[in-house]
């Protein structure tokens, strides 16, 4: 790293979403030709920081500099014009138009002469870019709808490379890419390094970071912890810095053996197949926490949705404790099954409605008086009872959920299913995007549920969490269950990872 002026420098950045403080006094500088890693637990503020640098969010306080000059992009488009481009995990292409149109969306003016756009030149330029990025098998004129998820992500990458970016931000994209896509990305990062450009690589996969990055900055609870140089980057040290306390015993569960309240299966799944899932069968016993681990698109999320009835099952059955089968979400809910989706704000809760409306929604039937009337008093009681038990931080029950922090929203979803008296909980990434403090509260709640004889299926991409909390772990790869582990002190991440990849 030359001592020349940094490409991007960020000084004492503060950012908070209503009550949670996402970033506190974070400073960072990335120098030309440097691949800077950024790591931290979910909710440590790494995505918020990258969003601020790439212009998607505005910092509350603090300043940013690009090559020394003040830099405050109004939106991501302005940022990418200035050479700061970013790719994210969520899908960012428009399916009804062609690949070329996607690549140059928002930037068509360069191909226009007195208003007329030369579409041949545009698709030629797009094809050139695709070849440069190394994805020449994708045709520029083809509509994006026909492409696979991976190709669409590569189109996004090509879009980011339309002008060689000064700073290229990769925000947890690799988890979504299979191997071929990842190699292309790594190749591009090397090319950028050679050209003297810089990369900000965000991931929570420690081994990938060590392999790709020159230096790594670690964030925790929205605070800057440390920047490790070439030699110091070592997995265990990084994890400790990430989590803050050595992996304290009581962070996850402190009992170390597989304890089930009773052997009676609360949920039985028999040779279920749908989409990429092939012949999934397993049983969930009373009071057991069953962990589903695997890479992000190996099918663990689809299992949760299929059980709950959100996906159309091709074959196979899901039966609850009392033997009846469940097909649709409403049947599952009647049979006391609760589901918490991965994308919380859009699927697992109604963001613009207030707390009470969200909590009581699935259990309206139980509150009925005389067959149809739902007295508001009963609603209020149910909502305040469960919000109290999970001690949700809120102004009052009529507060809109949009104003709550990530942790509180998760508690509301849990309160919703507890209000419905759910026996089986399917939790898909329960602690995703939640800051450390509240994460621990979620784990304590899970332990309480287990002690009451409730059964939990926990789907998570964070191995430490899966190992720490589950009685039994099923490892999945490409839609199949490949290995089963029981809880035990000798269980480590490495022993599981080899089955995942």
């Amino acid at each position: 790293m030359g001592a020349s002026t940094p490409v991007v420098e960020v000084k004492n950045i503060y950012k908070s979403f209503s009550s949670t403080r996402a970033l506190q006094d974070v400073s960072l500088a990335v120098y030309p030709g440097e691949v800077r890693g950024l790591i931290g637990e979910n909710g440590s503020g790494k995505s918020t920081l990258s969003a601020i640098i790439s212009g998607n969010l505005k910092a509350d306080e603090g300043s940013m500099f690009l090559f020394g000059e003040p830099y405050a992009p109004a939106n991501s488009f302005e940022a990418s014009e200035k050479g700061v481009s970013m790719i994210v995990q969520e899908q960012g292409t428009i399916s009804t138009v062609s690949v070329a149109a996607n690549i140059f969306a928002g930037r068509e003016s360069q191909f226009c002469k007195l208003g007329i756009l030369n579409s041949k030149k545009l698709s030629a330029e797009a094809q050139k870019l695709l070849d440069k990025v190394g994805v020449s098998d994708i045709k520029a004129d083809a509509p994006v709808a026909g492409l696979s998820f991976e190709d669409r992500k590569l189109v996004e990458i090509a879009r980011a490379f339309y002008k060689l970016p000064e700073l290229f931000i990769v925000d947890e994209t690799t988890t979504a890419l299979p191997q071929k896509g990842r190699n292309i990305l790594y190749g591009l990062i090397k090319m950028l390094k050679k050209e003297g450009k810089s990369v900000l690589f965000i991931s929570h996969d420690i081994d990938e970071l060590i392999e790709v990055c020159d230096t790594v900055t670690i964030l925790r609870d929205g605070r800057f912890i440390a920047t490790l140089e070439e030699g110091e980057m070592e997995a265990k040290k990084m994890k400790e810095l990430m989590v803050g306390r050595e992996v304290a015993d009581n962070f996850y569960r402190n009992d170390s053996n597989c304890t089930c309240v009773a052997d009676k299966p609360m949920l039985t799944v028999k040779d279920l197949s749908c989409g990429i899932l092939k012949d999934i069968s397993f049983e969930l016993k009373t009071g057991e926490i069953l962990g589903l681990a695997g890479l992000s698109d190996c099918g663990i999320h689809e299992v949760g949705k299929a059980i709950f009835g959100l996906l159309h099952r091709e074959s196979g059955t899901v039966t609850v404790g009392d033997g009846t089968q469940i097909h649709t979400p409403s049947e599952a809910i009647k049979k006391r099954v609760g589901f918490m989706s991965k994308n919380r704000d859009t699927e697992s809760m109604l963001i613009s409605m207030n707390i009470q409306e969200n909590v009581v929604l699935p259990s309206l039937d139980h509150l009925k008086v005389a067959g149809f009337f739902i007295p508001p008093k009963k609603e209020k009681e149910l909502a305040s009872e469960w919000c109290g038990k999970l001690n949700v931080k809120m102004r009052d029950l009529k507060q809109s959920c949009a104003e709550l922090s990530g942790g509180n929203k998760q508690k509301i979803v849990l309160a919703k299913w507890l209000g419905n008296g759910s026996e089986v909980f399917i939790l898909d990434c329960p602690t995703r995007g939640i800051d450390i403090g509240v994460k621990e509260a979620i784990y304590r709640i899970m332990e309480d549920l287990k002690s009451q004889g409730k059964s939990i299926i926990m789907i998570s991409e964070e191995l430490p969490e899966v190992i720490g909390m589950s009685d039994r772990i099923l490892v999945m790869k490409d839609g199949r269950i490949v290995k089963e582990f029981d809880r035990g002190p000798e269980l480590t991440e490495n022993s599981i990872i080899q089955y995942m990849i």
Partner: protein
Amino acid sequence: MSTNTAVRTKKSDEDKKLAFKKALSTAIPYLGLLILIVLFQILTGNFLTASNLEAIFDQGFTLLIASMAGVFVMATGNLDFSLGANAGFCCVCATLAATYIHPIASIPVAIIVGLIVGMVNGFAQTVLRLPSFIACLCMMFILTAATQSLITGSSIMMPVSMMFWETFARKLIFGIIYMAVMIVMFKYTRVGKELKTLGVSPEAARQSGVNVKKRIFLAYAITGLAAGIAGFWFMLRTGGAATTTGQTTTSDVIIAVVFGGMSVSGGASSKISAAILGTLIVTVLNNGMVMAGFGGDPQQLVKGLLFLLVIAVSTKRDPNVIIK
């Protein structure tokens, strides 16, 4: 499970401002109604007489029935374009039933026909997955053509004996029962609550146990049923059925509900009171303007400008919400 109570955060001044803004936006329709009543009382002098209030009640009655049901569909973010044509068609069927079968038969016939049309609308959108706008538009064309072919001459009369069915007391009692049923159904039962969730996000509603297809089907069935009831009362009020019956009801419902302060894209802030209030405002407006002498050309111009003003004042402007 530790039973500590929920932590109540203190009211920050930003919350207070938000609460004030929210209270203001709910108060605007009430304020609007009050201003109109006072204005017309000053202009005409005999606006607030008992007979005029009775006239307003009579005129607004069928619009109230239709718009209260319209709120159910609008809560899911859709619109029912076939509402007016359905009311007209049920009016014709009721009149034919009254003349050829028995006067009493007109009540069940109107309700059943309206319900069937509502269910066909619901079926087309849920099972056949047709876009709601096109399905209702075609249903409107079909019903208008059917009404016109069923009626010979300018209109068909209902039996004379039914002339005295429609008394003020009966309408008032039916009105209050209907309002009570609709308010309870919208605010205090699963139906209303779950329809509101469909306005926010169908996927999130589905994951909380709402049977999306069934609820949308029910919403259109309710609107169809209400159109049937409105059709019956149209028959009593106009003494029979004409090709023009119910012609403007669809747009009147949409205008009334928006005047009443309902958010048109449905969702969390939809409220049934918007239908009651909106009907009152629209009827008072029509009645008052004619009495004050603006019944000619300016009537529709004033209505359009006021409509624009009410929308401008009441909707909250969130830049990143996508408005279609």
